[in-house]
């Protein structure tokens, strides 16, 4: 496993932060579609799909998008049945899943806690 670009994690983190600020603080209502749609379509799934270390970026993004839409569907349906329809609770659950995926990434863990680069390893996919 080699160290990979941190572009995606940074983008996911930025998108998660943006959608959280806009929703919880209730600011910039006109920017909500532009911020919310990329988050819902990409972030929760891609944060976890990256951990699979599949062969190429296109397949990772494809799995990430499908997984995001699946997670969004499962979470929103489950919360409806649990009588918790509020958008804040819904978003909170998705943000937690997204951040969980980012925290589980060994590359990011190295960055956060050990602050040293990962050693080069062989390709595992």
């Amino acid at each position, binding site marked *: 496993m080699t160290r990979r670009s941190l572009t995606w994690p940074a983008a996911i983190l930025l998108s998660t932060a943006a*959608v959280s600020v806009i*929703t919880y603080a209730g600011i910039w*209502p006109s920017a*909500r*579609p532009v911020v*919310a*749609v990329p*988050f*819902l379509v990409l972030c929760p799934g891609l944060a*976890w*799909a990256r*951990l*699979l*270390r*599949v*062969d190429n970026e*296109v*397949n990772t*993004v*494809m*799995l990430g*998008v*499908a*997984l995001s*839409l*699946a*997670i*969004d*569907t*499962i979470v*929103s*349906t489950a*919360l*409806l*049945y649990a*009588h918790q*329809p*509020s*958008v804040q609770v*819904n*978003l909170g659950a998705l943000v937690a899943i997204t951040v969980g995926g980012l925290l589980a990434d060994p590359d990011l863990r190295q960055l956060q806690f050990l602050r040293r680069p990962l050693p080069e390893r062989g*390709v*595992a*996919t």
Partner: protein
Amino acid sequence: MRTEDRTGASLPAAPGGGPARPAALPLLPTLESAWPALCAVVAGLCLWLWAGAIGDVNPRQINDIGLASVLPGRVLFALILLSVSFCVLLHRRPLNIPVAALHLGILIFMLYGMTSFIEEVPRFAVSWRHAGVADYLVQHGRVDPKIDAYFNWPGFFALAALFTKLTGYKNPISLAADAPIYFNLLYLGAVAMIIRSATSDARVVWLGCWIFFISNWVGQDYFSPQALSYFIHLVILGLLLTWFRRERYRSADGDVAESALLPSGTGWQRVGLLAVAIILFASIVPSHQLTPFATVGSVIALVVFRRTTARGLYVLMLVLLVTWLSFAAVDYLSGHIARLTSDVGNVSGNTTANVSERLTGSPDHLFVIRIRLVMTAGLWGLALLGVTRRLGRGHRDLTFALLAMAPFPLLGLQGYGGEMLLRVYLFSLPFVAFFVASLFYPSLTSRSSWTTTGLASLVSIALLGSFLFARYGNEKVNQFTGQELQVVDRLYKIAPKGALLVAGSVNVPWRSQGYNDYRYLTLTKVAADEGQSLPRLADLLTAMRRPRDGCAFVLLSRSQKTYTDLLGIWPPGTLSRLEQQIFSSPLFSRVYSSDDAAIFRLDKSVKGAPDDPSKPDVARSNSPVDCRR
């Protein structure tokens, strides 16, 4: 053993052991290197031509053959030019992937975005109904499974409600207008993933995707649970074919499945991928009635014929499916189990319901239906030829042949309201498209001759032409006007909650608000309940008087009349004549009207009084009508 062709592409050794022949006839070197850039410019030109012409279309002039009747020549020319440019691009090896992707992107935008630019409001009555279900979830925040089937499979609607709330849109219908473009862009990635699992020949991968999009006429990519579930279904199959494929073959001519190029994954990677497949499946189980069955059927076919290493996956899938049906969907199933199971095993009856019973309507509409049948049969015939050519080159694509046939047993389960054959076509399309593409490039060493390019262009243009009729042949029915929508909006403003709302047919852009706040009825159902072949004013009155209290309104519009006329539900003009009778009857007051629609209220206090020709439109304000008068 691999060799280099003149363009620097790495080619496998020919079956005889000698070097493979160069892929293309030599062109002028400068022209050859500029080839992809030239194709990209042509694709951009096509988009520019299309965008300049599509705004000139007047949707009111659409006739019974659909959108094709009003498309300007420049739009058709742009589509033909794009087809030729794409096929010419395939000629040069190695294929320039970004330019091929650009062509596909522009094709999707042009083919599936057409109606967004032409029509005033989102098309398809069902889209409006789906938006209404999502709106109900936004407004009430709970699922009531007693309302109807949608509330027993609410996954997609819960997702749409989440999108609506998070984006701040007023109504989920805002998501509907461009839904086909977005869904088809998603399909592009999934279909490419599937085809790449069978071949490393980029020409087949991209031509297969191209064929998929110019043949996907069934129109199940609108704002619907089917559209989303289909994408997830494709990704599940792509995942299994890429990482859990049993055979890792290299054919005699050196072609290898893309997945065979991948090193084996680690144990944890496989566990993770399986978990992804289960999560994906878990999201379609509560979203759509049919797709989970198609997915399980495909997975079982792969397991039975030993084409996948994920042998236990189908068991988990079945557990999820049965659990949902036994607990969450039980309210619906308990009331409809007899109807749902009555068609099981009746393949002939279900097929008849899907083919011959749909052969009705105006002469132009019959022409459209015949094009659909010919196009479907033609595509399957081309696929069969592709299978034969692949076999001739030593490729035994049993996996793809199985997956192309796996949806057919669904015909033995249900007629699905006469739409099962359409769904079977849809589920088998990625695999059929692969075989059609293989007809032109049956193996990695196949030369890109100009004859092949010409034939591929001709087939592509023929399919595109058929697509415009097949997909948009019902556009006169499917489109709604701004005036119709305005009248529907007015209906919701003046009708008090609990009122009975009657429409001429199901083709109305209503229920996107107040989904369960009103009682809804259609004249087609009234006539069927009374055993009448035609709607009668007396039957309408009986149905509208059945609720002892509350208001009752009739909404008649242009699209309802077009629906019953074009599809041959009633003789042409039937609904217009009934509207005239309603207008003349003293029992009804016209409360609002526009050029395209009118609302009538039943006055329950009047008992057969003479006609009052001076009746004005009663409701001028937006406040609800007082029905106690």
